[in-house]
């Protein structure tokens, strides 16, 4: 699916983070971080906790000072601009609504901070509250709101000032699953309609896949891969990305033969053919997405003893018995109760669908 023409995919460097480094008490969180976002793009920073994604977000917002490197926004260096002069709004995980102010006063805060008189804020506040369908709650205390309502207020408060960039730190993590999915669709539509450039920080891959044009997968202060959700899923750049984004069969093995861009790998479950050239004897990690594995022989075929068969509604997951660190996974569409733990099943898939990474990457 091609993105709309109005959004460039990072070529124009609307936000340009170059060689940014940060250490806390001598322990480096990130170094040489490069990160570029185009105007109107919705981008996610996805990674496990402690990977540096929130630090990067805070550096962009101006809430944390980078030790080195530069941040440019629309061509202007903002590295040393204080947060209150950047016009970058942040929606926090806890929403950080002002508890002593009403919903309307919270939303009006940004305008008041910019020197607008209280009386001038009225129409814009009404408009912003209507945007997030919170008009009936204008005079409520924020403590009296539910999580979803608080999030809507936080979004209205962030958007009323027409920010040049919107940053959202785990904005959905405090919501229960059903509400989270509704809010994701709602927020994405809202941001699209306003052509807002936004960066989401999240550790939830479904959320990142759902809301973003592109996802930067972070690990240990590095961006492992920055690509569209479909690219990330079908061609993960590393075993880490493969593991972090979506489920997969994952096996370790050793290359025993290599010819014409095709490697033969010996694993604990049988011989597997994989695309790519590796040195004989190299340790590799093999991966396959579960929906690409079928229960009949194909170019790669393994005989697997089932550990579990989980009927999940729209699909049925077959888990094979595997050694520690390995995983054998096959998904067949629909509800299928033909399988039982202990059955021997054939897992088959094509060489072209096989992902292979040198071990340790």
């Amino acid at each position, binding site marked *: 699916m091609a993105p709309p023409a109005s959004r460039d995919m990072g070529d124009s460097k609307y936000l340009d983070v170059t060689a940014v480094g940060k250490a806390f008490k001598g322990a480096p969180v990130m170094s040489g971080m490069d990160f570029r976002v185009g105007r109107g793009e919705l981008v996610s920073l996805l990674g496990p906790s402690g990977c540096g994604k929130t630090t990067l977000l805070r550096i962009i917002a101006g809430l944390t000072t980078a030790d080195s490197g530069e941040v440019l926004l629309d061509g202007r260096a903002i590295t040393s601009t204080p947060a*209150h002069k950047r016009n970058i709004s942040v929606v926090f995980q806890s929403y950080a609504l002002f*508890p002593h102010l009403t919903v309307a006063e919270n939303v009006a805060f940004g305008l008041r901070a910019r020197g607008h008189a209280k009386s001038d804020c009225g129409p814009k506040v009404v408009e912003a509250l209507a945007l997030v369908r919170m008009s009936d709650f204008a005079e409520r205390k924020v403590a009296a709101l539910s999580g979803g309502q608080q999030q809507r207020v936080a979004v209205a408060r962030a958007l009323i000032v027409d920010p040049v960039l919107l940053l959202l730190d785990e904005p959905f993590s405090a919501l229960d699953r059903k509400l989270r999915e509704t809010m994701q669709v709602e927020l994405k539509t809202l941001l699209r309609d306003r052509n807002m450039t936004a960066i989401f920080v999240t550790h939830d891959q479904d959320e990142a896949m759902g809301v973003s044009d592109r996802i930067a997968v972070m690990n240990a202060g590095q961006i492992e891969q920055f690509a569209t959700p479909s690219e990330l899923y079908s061609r993960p750049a590393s075993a880490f990305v493969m593991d972090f984004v979506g489920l997969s069969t994952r096996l370790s093995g050793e290359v025993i033969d290599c010819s014409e861009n095709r490697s033969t790998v010996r694993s604990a479950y049988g011989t597997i053919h994989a695309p790519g050239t590796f040195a004989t004897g190299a340790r590799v990690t093999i991966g396959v997405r579960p929906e690409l594995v079928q229960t009949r022989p194909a170019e790669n075929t393994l005989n697997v003893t089932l550990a579990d068969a989980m009927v999940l509604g729209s699909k049925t997951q077959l888990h094979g018995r595997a050694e520690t660190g390995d995983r054998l996974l096959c998904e067949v569409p629909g509800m299928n109760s033909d399988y039982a733990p202990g059955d021997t099943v054939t897992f088959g898939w094509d060489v072209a669908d096989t992902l292979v990474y040198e071990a340790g990457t």
Partner: protein
Amino acid sequence: MTGRAERIGLLALPGLSFLAVIYALPLFMLLLKSVQIDGQFSIAEYIAFFSDSYNLSVLWRTLRVALLTTGLALIIAYPTAIIMARAKGFWLSVFLVAMVLPMSVGVVVKAFAWTILFRTRGVLNDTLMSLGITDAPIRMLFTETALIIGAANVFLPFMVLPIYAVLRQMDSRLPEAAASLGATPVFRFMNVTLPLSLPGVVAGCAFTFSLAISMYVIPSLIVGERQQTLSMLTARSFLYLRNEALGATISSILLLIAISVVLASSWAANRLGARQ
């Protein structure tokens, strides 16, 4: 559930009975003494107290000193509380010890230490004169200024700690959210930090004012008999004048002021709390 909660309530019984016998009962008897003359109800003692201009000047001085002490303590305490709320680990311990440790030094010791500082040939005057700021020593001991400075010093922890506790609880994301919405540091302070810290300020002021209005040892040592406060007048009535009715009357007035301050402050704290 209710039964259990009620039985747990019994645990408060020893404390309540202790307070009733040792605190409430004698205080009630004292109060009674102030409105009785020869076993008859009378407010004559109060009328007599308020029609004496000397008493009124003492009352006014007591209120003035307590107010100024509270104000001075607040000015010094607020920035300290902000720094403490942001401090972590070692530095937080340093601040907390610095706040609590002086409380273990008796007021008498402190007051004599100040006389070294404040007296005519004291450290402060020597410094001022050697810097050429004044030619002759300034009289500092036995003045109201010295009293206010000393009292603010003693009561400082009672102002710092409640403000610190409130600021510590405040979500540190709130000022950050304000900053990202374009609020300057001053606007952030005036519209986020200050209003959210008001319950602590109210509590600190109530503590400090209550302590300052009823202080006895500090004014006795710093200003002496020349400038009386209500507490000193009370002691004088009981100890020297042997006028128990007058002493009881002044005590009751003091108590009334203290109770009003506590009630007003808890009302204010509730109002502020309700807004949040």
